[in-house]
Each structure stands twice: as structure tokens, then as C-alpha cells.
């Protein structure tokens, strides 16, 4: 085990752990945000630069500070490393800069975006963004493409985190979409207009940090904060069947995987509980599901407002 100090908190982690994962082990508000890194998808990270941190001392052996801020998701810790996240003014300024970059071409269509309320870019914008924009030029737009009747791709909102590419690579038999073109013109697309359709493609929606990939069966049905999330279970031969159903009254509006406070799909019984497209898109009848209890949503304060989860703890029937 090696010792590392993050924002004055000393922790011991296994060698080879990245700074971000070390911070997550320590927990609390010293954890840097991550828009592209997804711990359940190997190979992700290093792209969005929102997790930049300052390394004030490289290691006990070589205590020199690192000259540039580093991406905490892809930098392994060293014994005696001192990292500054919340306590570094430089990190705060630079992260604000990254958020500004992410927002220059991002359409501010949050009022009609299905991701609103659970969008990581909204959270970051709230924390770091400025009320004014310095960008006076035209925003980049893409012509919409149809990727099937279940998933809506809204490319203008995409921040190119590559998570959905990783999902298609690692969860499905064959990947039919990817990143086309480069630089500013880079876009998520299928080479020939093609539906992305296989049993696990819906997980692309869950990993998308913004509203670029949304659920067509839920599109414009409701704002997420009007819905009550319940942990639910069903017998499924394709996936674990452990999901969250989002209800209004007796109606299921949408189904998602169970996500932790970092917005990542939870590990249940040593497996990442991805859910299959049948569970996500087709099982909208409450009789398909056994409700376990209210789901507390840590990350998104809007949803957990009004102490919904504590009020109705373990008594979902109250809502009926």
C-alpha cells in the first residue's frame, strides 16, 4: 500500500491506483468531477480534462511538483504524493476554463432537454460556469441522424467523452457507431445511417453525461424531478433485472440502471448491473416489476429535494 495526501486527507491505496480513484476511496467533496472517465468501462478517461488536479509533490523519492495540472483519472499515485483539488485556486480556475470550453458549443437548451436535472454538465456549469459567455461566434451544429426507434442522438449536446463508444465495444457484440471526423467536426455517428440496435445498446443512455443520448420512450414525457425513483427488480434472462423505475402515480415513465453518486452504474453481486433493452424500453407496466423501495439519488439534489426518500422510506405504497 502507498500513502497519498489529497486536500490534506491522507489515505492508503494500492499501487497503480489513479489519483481520481484514490480520491473516491477517501470520499467526500475532495473527489474531482469526471465527465469522460467511467470506472466500469476500462479504457475511458483522459479526454474531458475536468478532473484536472495539482500535484504539489510528485512522490517521497522525487518531491518536485508537477509543472502542469494533470488529469487525475489517468495519473497513477506515487508514494508520498501530495495532490490538491479543492484547496488549489489554480485547479478551480482551470476547471472553470474547461467548463467554459465544454459550453462554448453546447446548446443551452436545458429547458427542453431530457437530461436536465441529472446532467453532469449542468452541475459543473452551476459550480464553475460564469453567468456571462465570452463566446460571440456561431455555435457548431450537426445535422441530426436517426439511430433507431429507442435511442435519440442529439449530437449538438455531445461533449465527446467516448463513453458510449466504450459501451458498444465492451457490452455489445459489435459496434456500429463511432467518432467520425476530427477536431471541432468530430461527431458520434454511424458510418452509414444505421440503427444502433442490440440487447445492451440502451446503456449508452445511462453512461452519457449529458443529453446527447436520451431514451426515446421517455422523450418529453416528464421532467425527471417530477418522478419518484424506486429500486425495482424483475426476472430477466438477459440481465440482472435490477433497475430503478421512475414513476408518477402508478405509471412507470422510464427505467434506468441503478447509478451511484458518481453517476456510474452500480456493482451488484460483483457485477456491474447493466440492464438490457427489454427491461429499459419495454417493461413499462408496473406488473413487470417488484418494487423494493424508494431510491435515494445522491448526486442530483433537485431529485432528492423535499426529503422524498426519507419521508417515504420503505413504504412505497404511501404514494399510490
Amino acid at each position: 500500500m502507498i500513502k497519498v495526501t489529497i486536500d490534506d486527507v491522507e489515505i492508503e491505496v494500492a499501487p497503480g491506483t489513479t489519483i481520481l480513484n484514490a480520491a473516491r476511496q477517501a470520499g467526500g467533496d475532495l473527489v474531482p468531477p469526471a465527465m469522460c472517465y467511467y470506472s466500469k468501462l476500462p479504457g475511458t478517461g483522459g479526454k474531458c480534462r475536468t478532473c484536472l488536479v495539482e500535484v504539489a509533490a510528485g512522490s517521497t523519492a522525487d518531491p518536485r511538483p508537477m509543472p502542469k495540472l494533470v488529469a487525475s483519472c489517468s495519473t497513477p499515485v506515487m508514494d508520498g504524493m501530495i495532490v490538491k483539488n479543492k484547496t488549489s485556486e489554480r485547479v478551480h480556475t482551470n476547471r472553470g476554463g474547461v467548463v467554459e470550453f465544454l459550453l462554448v458549443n453546447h446548446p443551452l437548451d436545458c429547458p427542453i432537454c431530457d437530461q436536465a436535472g441529472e446532467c453532469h454538465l449542468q452541475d459543473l456549469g452551476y459550480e464553475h460556469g460564469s453567468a456571462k459567455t465570452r463566446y460571440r461566434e456561431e455555435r457548431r451544429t450537426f445535422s441530426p441522424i436517426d439511430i433507431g426507434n429507442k435511442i435519440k442522438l442529439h449530437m449538438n449536446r455531445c461533449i465527446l467523452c467516448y463513453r458510449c463508444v466504450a459501451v458498444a465495444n465492451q457490452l455489445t457484440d459489435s459496434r456500429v457507431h463511432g467518432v467520425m471526423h476530427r477536431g471541432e467536426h468530430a461527431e458520434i455517428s454511424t458510418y452509414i445511417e444505421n440503427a444502433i440496435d442490440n440487447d445492451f445498446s440502451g446503456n449508452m443512455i445511462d453512461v452519457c453525461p449529458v443529453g446527447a443520448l436520451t431514451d426515446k420512450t421517455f422523450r418529453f414525457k416528464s421532467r425527471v424531478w417530477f418522478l419518484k425513483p424506486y429500486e425495482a427488480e424483475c426476472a430477466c434472462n438477459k440481465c440482472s433485472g435490477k433497475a430503478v423505475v421512475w414513476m408518477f402515480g402508478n405509471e412507470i415513465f422510464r427505467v434506468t440502471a441503478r447509478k451511484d453518486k458518481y453517476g456510474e452504474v452500480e456493482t451488484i453481486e460483483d457485477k456491474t448491473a447493466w440492464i438490457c433493452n427489454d427491461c429499459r424500453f419495454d417493461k413499462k407496466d408496473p406488473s413487470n416489476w417488484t418494487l423494493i423501495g424508494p431510491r435515494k439519488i445522491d448526486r442530483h439534489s433537485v431529485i432528492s429535494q423535499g426529503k422524498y426518500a426519507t419521508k417515504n422510506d420503505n413504504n412505497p405504497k404511501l404514494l399510490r
Partner: protein
Amino acid sequence: MSRKLLIEHAEVPGITSFETYRKHGGYASVEKALKTMSPEEVVEEVKKSGLRGRGGAGFPTGMKWSFLAKPEGVERHLVCNADESEPGTFKDRYLMEKLPHLLIEGMITSSYALGARRSYIYIRGEFMYVLRILEKAIAEAYANGMLGKNILGSGYDLDLVVTPGGGAYICGEETALLESLEGKRGNPRMKPPFPAVKGLWGNPTVVNNVESIAAVVPIVNEGGEAYAKIGIERSTGTKLISASGNLVRPGVYEIELGLSVEEFIYGDNYCRGVANGKKLKACIPGGSSVPILPHYLVTKTAAGTDRLMTYESLADGGFASGSMLGSGGFIVFDEDQCIVRNTWNFARFYAHESCGQCSPCREGTGWMEKVL
């Protein structure tokens, strides 16, 4: 005029053919290394020479070689980065076009030092005619027993493959180059693991610039110590400089590191001053990605000392009043040139060539272009 170690024979008629190259002392380093030296000894000579990577970053080549992981039973590779796409730099093209056998000789000697059995030259897609020159030279080297099985009876086998890229600036970055070489989208990889541990096809790989590999030839021939005597302090040996812009005599020059910038711009043996009797306005000494120097910081540093053509002296003053030797793309501007327009031109280049993987570059370079 300083000694030329690399391009001395560049203008000899017929030097692109194996026979003429051999007559002028070619492939001597291969004979010396394979017949009289162990691979470790070759690495040791390169370390002693103080050679620093000529692609731009200036990382010591010998040290890079010694980082190469050597697990049992795993193949290793040497990849030559010939994806020369930095605006203002054209030395590698010149070298490959004029002296294809020098690069091949360097590849054989370096591959031997690293224990690579299959080496690659990744050449920029726009250089198709250079690719043909190299392919012809490689075929000649195979025919004359310098490549293939049991080279010069030493028992060492080497295959050399030259592959063109798709013409993307980003593929000059070593991990993006490896991705592209594997047939994937040329996006840089996450590091660690570094290529020295997991590179091409997951095997330990060294990626070196054309000029660095070519410099191994004189280093092996004359010894690392003799090479280290040329130059000043940690900037040893000779360097190819691609001089362009408003100069009387632009072109590729081989200089001994430590030459003064003043001598390089105004000297009779070099560029002979700014063209048409104009005044110097600014200079970019190392290719478009290094800081631009205003006229008063070109020949003197901010501290008033002479600016020399070395890694250290050009970087004197950091990003505030210094620049970098970079890849040696020496661009000179006279008083009539518009720096804003030039900056816009470069910004346009970077916006066009950004791979779009990381957000600050993807969004920032496009924004820069639009602002300018």
C-alpha cells in the same frame, strides 16, 4: 563551415542507389555494430553521445532506449516517426528523399541495438513520392543482404516495413502514430502505459524521429564520445534546420549545435540575411508550435547574452522571453509580415488538425481561429 555528419553526401549524383551509397562509406555502421558490438554496447554509445530526440521534445535518445521493457519471448519494435507535419519543418523529407539509405542504415543499427526483429517507418501520407524512394531503397537493401534473414552473417534478422499515414498532424504524436499504424483512428492513447512498455500491438516499442535514427549512424561509426564533443553542454552533435521565410537563402542546413543564431541568419555559409534588404521582425525557431520571438529577442536573450542554436539557449527565458529548438523549423519574418495574420494561419492549422479527443483543444483551437 561546420562538419556535416548526416547530409554530407546528399548532393552526390545517384546516392539514392545502394551501390553509390555503399561506395561513399554507407552501411559501415551496420557492419561495425553487427560484427564487433553487442546490442548493449550500441545503446551505450548512443547514451554517451548525448543525442537528444530530434523530433521536437529533445528527450535523450539513449535514455529512451534504456527504458524499453525487455520481457522474455515478447517481440519488440522500433518505429521511425517520419510523419513530419509541423509547419516550417521539412528536414526529414529532405533527408529521406536524398539519402534513403542513411535512414535504412540507421534503422538496421538501431533495431539491432533494441533487439527489434520487425521495424516500421511510418511516413506522412502526403509524402507518397518519398515512400516510393524508400521502398526502392529497402528492396535494394534486401537484395544486398542488409535486411532479411541473417544480416551479414551475424545471425540477426530484421524486416523493415514502410507504411504511409492518412495525412493527420496528430499522428506525429507517438501513441496516435501507433494507433494509426495498427489501422485504428489516430487518437493519442492514455499514458501510462508508455510505448516502451506497451506500444505497437501491445509490444514494447521505441518511436524515434527520422533524424534521431539517422544520427545513430555517425555515432556508431565514430563513437559516442566523438559525437558528444560537437556542440555545447547538453546540446550535442549536429542538427538539421529547415530555414524558411524571408531569407536570402532558405533551405535545409546541417549545423553544429551551439552556432549563434546571428551567424545562422546572417552568416555567408548559412541563410545570408533577411531577403530584399528588409529588417527582421520576428522568428519562430522550432516549428509552428513553439513561441514566436520578436526581433529584439532573436539574436540576444532577455539577459543580453548571445542566443545560440541549442536546446537550452533558445529556451532561455521560458515562454515569456524564450522559445524552443523544437524540430528545427526556423521561420523568419521580415518587417512587412503581419504577425496576427500568421497567428491566424497557424490557429487555422491547429483547429483543422485537432483530433478532437480532449475538450480544451477541440473547443479551444476552433475558438481561437474564429476569434482571429
